[in-house]
């Protein structure tokens, strides 16, 4: 019986986590923020994201202002109202930091939420090369002039 309740609660936590993820996705995808926005700067991100993409770059240039965005998720557990808050810092369209904070109301929730948090994968964040003062970089194969020119031609043809 108790086990059944457990799995029930687990399902709720999972559901809450899914809702949370959805909130974050919405925050990124449709510029809909249920939370607050701080540290906004006036820099407008350029084409950081489009570099990685296809020939249809014209359509996919979504730009977000630099700053920290916080989305909060709330749900009611048998122990009362619970909250999870995710903060994401954006610079030039790249996530440069993110944190998850939880505000568990009951001891049970504390346990479940820490389970949720340990399942949260650590993700890479970007730092500008200038700030870390590095001149040598390893990554994608730097392309030659020829490839870049060919790609530019294709892109401009796709636009016209």
């Amino acid at each position: 019986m108790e086990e059944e309740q457990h799995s029930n609660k687990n399902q709720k936590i999972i559901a809450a986590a899914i809702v949370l993820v959805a909130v974050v996705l919405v925050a990124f995808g449709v510029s809909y923020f249920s939370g607050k926005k701080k540290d906004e700067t006036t820099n407008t991100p350029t084409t950081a994201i489009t570099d990685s993409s296809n020939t249809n770059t014209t359509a996919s240039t979504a730009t977000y202002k630099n700053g920290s965005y916080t989305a909060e998720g709330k749900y009611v557990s048998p122990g009362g109202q619970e909250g999870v808050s995710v903060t994401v810092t954006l610079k030039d369209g790249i996530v440069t930091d993110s944190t998850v904070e939880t505000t568990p109301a009951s001891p049970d929730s504390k346990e479940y939420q820490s389970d949720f948090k340990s399942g949260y994968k650590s993700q890479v964040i970007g730092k500008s090369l200038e700030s870390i003062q590095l001149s040598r970089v390893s990554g994608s194969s730097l392309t030659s002039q020829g490839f870049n020119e060919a790609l530019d031609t294709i892109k401009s043809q796709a636009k016209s």
Partner: protein
Amino acid sequence: MKRSIPSNRKPKASTANVTAAHFQFDAIGTAWDIEVFGKELAAAKAAELKATILKRIDQFDKHYSRFRNDSLVTAIAKSAGTYDLPADAQPMLKLYHELYKLTSGAVTPLIGQTLSDTGYDASYTLIPKKQISQVPSWESRLNYQPPRLTVTEPVLLDFGAAGKGYLTDLIADLLQARGYANYCINAGGDIVYHSATNDKLPIGLEHPDNPDMAIGVAHIANQSLCGSSGNRRSWDTFHHIVDPKSLQSPQHIKAVWVTAESGLIADGLATALFFVPANKLKNDYTFEYAIVADDYSLEHSPHFPAEFFTNQPPGA
């Protein structure tokens, strides 16, 4: 009393970190940056060294490039027969055959026509054909008994998976043979660094979405670091790696880095990791790796020589 002036520089009298010669140029479709450290070279000597390097690269290109009409690879694509391959083919084909077996055919030099059909061809068409060619099996086309390669049916070979890393090894050999022991060769992000005093060189690990950012800093000495990522060399839905089974470019990985004793191994394994988990390769090679997945999560071997910039797991 005279006091020493505080300085950020290491108080070292050695010339190991002083640039003796610095060459930057485009070759084999990528940007090269070669720095030789030590006592400054006289202009004539530097020019001679650069010419020797360019000649070696051109020789490699003339044998193994599928983008050249006059290459050995182009000849093999035109007619079946038995070819005497140059001596430097053996280590490369050996690695390719090993990786072919370890990845169940995913890493293969027989992918040339397929890559070309996606638009990655000699003239950088970058527009996929309606019909993308299937990839023939190794056994059906090639029989390699060094130095002889017997080609049963014409086939377009591609050495893009490990060729660039291998070429950095060959240029390192060239420098070493001329008595240079401190140098950094960077062929479009595939880097080999040699230091007689084993000083580590910091290298930024490029953010897969933004070439002006790094997601970490690697420190290497006397080894190779190769990276592979679909972000710059990409067109339509493709990048430079195509899965022979799906005929699509893998999208589950944003970037891979491998360190190993040679550029050949590091470059080849970086490609292989797009297809198989590191576990599959660890018995056959000594290497360290880091993978950034499509959700920006990071997986790396315990001793990959880098610090990473990550968001801390909550509560950590």
